[in-house]
C-alpha cells in the first residue's frame, strides 16, 4: 500500500508577492491604456489571474473544447470543395474504381476532396476523428462531473447546458455522417427515416416534412448541410460560451484537502500557468487527432460507394455515439400493433425515439431528483469522492452498463463474426443483458464503494502499511502501521455523512422518505475524534504487546481488522 499521500503541495504560485515599486513603465503601457480606454481591457484582464485547481479529470472537458476548435478549422477547409447537392452526375475523377458510376454531386465532391484536393483526405480524416473524439470527450467529461457530484447546487443549469451540448452534438455528428451521401450515410439516413416514420400519428407527415417528400428525395443533403455547418455549430458555439461563462462565474470545483473549503478555491492562476498548460494541451489534442487522421483510415467512402437505396453492406453501423440506438433496434422483439388499418411500430419507436428521449430526460432530471431525495439545499464547491456517494456512483455505473449493453448490441454482427459465435445467441444474450447487467453493476459498484469507505476508515484509524515485516522473538510476523498525516486524515474524514430526511417540521411524503433512506443507506460512518484517539492508543498498545507474550499473529490480526469486518 501507499505511503501517506501528500495532498496539497506547497505552491509558490500561491504566495502573495508584491511587485517591485520602482518598475520601469512597460513599453506596452501606451497601447494598453489606449485599448483600456475604449473596451475596458483592465476589467477584462481581471479574470486573467483566475485560479483553477489542478487534476487530470478536470482536463476532460478541455479535450471536447479543443476537438470542437479542430472541427471548426477542418470543417472550413472541407466546405470550400464540398457540394451539398443530390443532382446525379457520372463520376469522372481520378479514382478508377468509380469511373462512370452514377452518383450524387455530394458524393462526387467527397471523392474529389479525398483524391483530387491536396491534403483533402488527411483533413477529411482529421475532421472525422475529431468528431468521434468530440462526442467521446463530452461523454467522459459528463461522467466525471456526474461521479464527483459537481452538478449539484449551484451548477445544475450548467449541467443542463452540458446535456444539451451532448444531445445536439449527436445531431451534429449524425448530420455530418450523412453528408458524403455514400452507402453507409444513406443507410443511416434510411434508419432515421424509419425512426421519424415510427412516431405515432405524425410519423408520415414528419417524414415528408424532413425529406421534402418520400425518402430519399432530392433535398435532404442540402438541408443537413445547413444543419451541419450553420444551425448546430451556431448552437454549439453559443452553448459552449454559456457553459464556460458559467464555469468562470461559479468558479471550478475542487477536491477536498486541507485548506480547501466550500468558500475558496485552491490552485494555480490562469495566467501564466494554465495558459501554458491548456495551450500545450490544445496542441497535444491537435497532434493526436492529426496522427490519427494520418495513420488510421476512417470512413473510406470510396469503398462504400455512392448511396443507392437498392444496396446495403454487411457491417452497416452508425458512428459510435449512435451505436446504442442501433443496438436497441437490433435486439428489440418485433412488436407491432395493427389498429383500424394503421400500423404502430413499437419495435422502432420504443428503442429509437423512446430510448434517446429516456437517456436525455434521465440525464437532465437527475440533479433535481437527487436534490429532492436528499433535501440538500446547500451549495457544493467541494467534490465528492465517488465512493462517498455509493448509491449515486452505483446508479451511474448501472446507467453506463445499460448504455454499454445497448452499445455492444449495435455491433452484434461484428461480435458474431470476430469471436465466432452465433448472431442469434449474441442477440438473445443482449436482450437479457440490458436488464440484468445494470442490476449486477449496481450491486457490485455499491459493494466496492462501501469497501473503499471501510478501507478509508481503517487507514484513518490504523494508519498506512509500512511495508516493514517484523519478526518477533517468538517467531511471529507482523507489519507495523505508520500513522497518516493530519492532512490526509482530514481529507478522508471531511465528507458529510449522508442522512435520511427527517420530517422536521415540513411535510415529507412517504416515497420521498423511503428514497432518502435508501440513498443514505449502508454508509460506513467516518471515525469520530474519540475513535481516532482510541485507535492511536490501541496501536501503541499493540506495539507493546508485540514484544510480550501474546502471539504476534494476533497483533497483526488486530492491525488488519479493517480487511475482515
Amino acid at each position, binding site marked *: 500500500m501507499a505511503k501517506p499521500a501528500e495532498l496539497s*503541495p506547497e*505552491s509558490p*504560485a500561491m504566495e502573495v508577492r508584491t511587485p517591485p515599486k520602482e518598475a520601469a513603465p512597460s513599453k506596452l503601457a501606451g497601447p494598453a491604456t489606449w485599448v483600456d480606454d475604449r473596451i475596458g481591457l483592465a476589467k477584462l484582464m481581471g479574470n486573467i489571474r483566475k485560479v483553477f485547481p*489542478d*487534476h*487530470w*479529470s478536470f*482536463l476532460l472537458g*478541455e*479535450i471536447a473544447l479543443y476537438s470542437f476548435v479542430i472541427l471548426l478549422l477542418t470543417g472550413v477547409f472541407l466546405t470550400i470543395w464540398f457540394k451539398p447537392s443530390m443532382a446525379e452526375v457520372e463520376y469522372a475523377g481520378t479514382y*478508377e*474504381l468509380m*469511373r*462512370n*458510376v452514377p452518383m450524387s454531386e455530394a458524393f462526387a465532391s467527397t471523392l474529389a476532396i*479525398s483524391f483530387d484536393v491536396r491534403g483533402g483526405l488527411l483533413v477529411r*480524416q482529421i475532421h472525422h476523428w475529431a468528431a*468521434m*473524439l468530440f462526442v467521446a*470527450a463530452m461523454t467522459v467529461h459528463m461522467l466525471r462531473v456526474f461521479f464527483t457530484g459537481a452538478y449539484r447546487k449551484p451548477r445544475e443549469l450548467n449541467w443542463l447546458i452540458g446535456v444539451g451540448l451532448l444531445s445536439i452534438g449527436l445531431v451534429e455528428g449524425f448530420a455530418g455522417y450523412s453528408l458524403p451521401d455514400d*452507402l*453507409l450515410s444513406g443507410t443511416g439516413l434510411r434508419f432515421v427515416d424509419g425512426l421519424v416514420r415510427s412516431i405515432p400519428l405524425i410519423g408520415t407527415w414528419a417524414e415528408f416534412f424532413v425529406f421534402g417528400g418520400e425518402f430519399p428525395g432530392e433535398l435532404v443533403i442540402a438541408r443537413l448541410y445547413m444543419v451541419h455547418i450553420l444551425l448546430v455549430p451556431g448552437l454549439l458555439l453559443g452553448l459552449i460560451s454559456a457553459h464556460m461563462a458559467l464555469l468562470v462565474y461559479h468558479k471550478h470545483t475542487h477536491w477536498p484537502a486541507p485548506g480547501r473549503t466550500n468558500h475558496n478555491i485552491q490552485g494555480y492562476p490562469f495566467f501564466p*500557468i494554465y495558459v501554458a*498548460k491548456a495551450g*500545450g*494541451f490544445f496542441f497535444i*489534442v491537435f497532434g*493526436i*487527432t492529426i496522427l*490519427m*487522421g494520418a*495513420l*488510421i*483510415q476512417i470512413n*473510406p467512402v470510396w*469503398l*462504400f*460507394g455512392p448511396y*443507392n437505396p*437498392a*444496396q*446495403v*453492406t*454487411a*457491417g452497416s*453501423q*452508425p*458512428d*459510435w455515439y449512435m*451505436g446504442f440506438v442501433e443496438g436497441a433496434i437490433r435486439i428489440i422483439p418485433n412488436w407491432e400493433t395493427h389498429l383500424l388499418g394503421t400500423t404502430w411500430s413499437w419495435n422502432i419507436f420504443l428503442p429509437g425515439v423512446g430510448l434517446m428521449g429516456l437517456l436525455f430526460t434521465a440525464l437532465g432530471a437527475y440533479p433535481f431528483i437527487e436534490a429532492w431525495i436528499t433535501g440538500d439545499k446547500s451549495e457544493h464547491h467541494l467534490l465528492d469522492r465517488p465512493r462517498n456517494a455509493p448509491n449515486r456512483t452505483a446508479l451511474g455505473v448501472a446507467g453506463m452498463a445499460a448504455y454499454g449493453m445497448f452499445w455492444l448490441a*449495435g*455491433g452484434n*454482427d*461484428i461480435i*458474431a*463474426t470476430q469471436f465466432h*459465435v*452465433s*448472431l*442469434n445467441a449474441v442477440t438473445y444474450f443482449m436482450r437479457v443483458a440490458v436488464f440484468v447487467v445494470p442490476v449486477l453493476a449496481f450491486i457490485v459498484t455499491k459493494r466496492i464503494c462501501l469497501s473503499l469507505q471501510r478501507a478509508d476508515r481503517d487507514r484513518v484509524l490504523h494508519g498506512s502499511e509500512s511495508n516493514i515485516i517484523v519478526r518477533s522473538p517468538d517467531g511471529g510476523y507482523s507489519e507495523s502501521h505508520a500513522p497518516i498525516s493530519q492532512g490526509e486524515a482530514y481529507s478522508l474524514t471531511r465528507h458529510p455523512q449522508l442522512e435520511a430526511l427527517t420530517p422536521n417540521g415540513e411535510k415529507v411524503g412517504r416515497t420521498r422518505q423511503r428514497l432518502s433512506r435508501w440513498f443514505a443507506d449502508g454508509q460506513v460512518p467516518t471515525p469520530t475524534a474519540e475513535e481516532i484517539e482510541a485507535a492511536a492508543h490501541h496501536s501503541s498498545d499493540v506495539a507493546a504487546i508485540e514484544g510480550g507474550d501474546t502471539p504476534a499473529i494476533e497483533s497483526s490480526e488486530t492491525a488488519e481488522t479493517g480487511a475482515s469486518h
Partner: protein
Amino acid sequence: MRFLASGRRHKAARPLLLLLSLFLVGAVYALVTPATSSSAEGVADAQLIAAGKNLFATNCASCHGLNAEGLAQQGAPNLTNVGAAAVDFQVRTGRMPMANPLVQAPRKENTFTEDEIAALAAYVASLGDGPAIPDESQYDPSSVSAEGVARGGDLFRTNCSACHNFKGAGGALPDGRVAPSLQGVDAKEIWEAMRTGPGQMPVFASGSIPDEDVQKMVAYLEQVNATPSAGLSLGGLGPVAEGFWAWVAGIGSLVLFATWIATRGPRA
C-alpha cells in the same frame, strides 16, 4: 415396291417393322442428342467416374449416401443434380468432406489431389444435371476494362455486399452462419459459388448475371482489395472498429496526457 407390297402379309413383317421402327427411334435419338464425348473419351470418362465413385464411397457416402441421395438426419443434401462445379468448389476449398457436423462447412485446407477432385466431380456430374467446372475464359477477370471494373463494383454492392461486406471482408448470418471473407479467394471459386449457391448463398444463375458480369465483379473485388488504404484499414469492418479506436487510442492517450499535464507543477 412390289416386294414391299407382296411381303406385307408375310408373318415376319410385323416383328421386322417393330424392329425397324425401334432402330429408327434409336438412330434419331442418337442424332438429336448432342454427343458428349468421343468413344475414346467415353472410356476415359468411365474410368474417371468409377474412380470418383470409389472416392465418393470412402469420403462422402457416410453422410451423402452411397448413391449421393443425401441423408436427411445428417443434414446432408442430395447431390444428384449439384453438378461438377459444386463438387469442385466444396472439395477444393476444403469445405467437404466436413470434419464435424457444424451449421456451416468452414473453409479449410484441401487434402485431395487435382485428379481426385476431377474424379469426384465427374462421378457426381454423371448422376444428373448441374453446372460444369468452368473454363478459364468464363471467370478470368484479366480482360475487364476500367469501366467494367467500376460497373463490377456497382454489381458487387447490389448483389454481394449485403452479406459479404463492401470489400468482401465477410459478415454475420443468422444461427451461427457467416458469409465468409472473399478476400484472396480465386476467381474460379467465386464463379462456382455464384452458380451453385453453397450453404445459405443464393444461386446467381447465368440468366441473371452472365459470365462477363461475374468477371467484372471479381475484377472489382481484386482491385479494391489491392488499393492501398488511407492508413490502418482496421479490418475493413466499418464504424464499429473506428469507434473502438477513437475510444482506446484517442481518448485513452489523451487521458494519459491529461494525467501527465496534471502532475506537472507550475515550475516543472
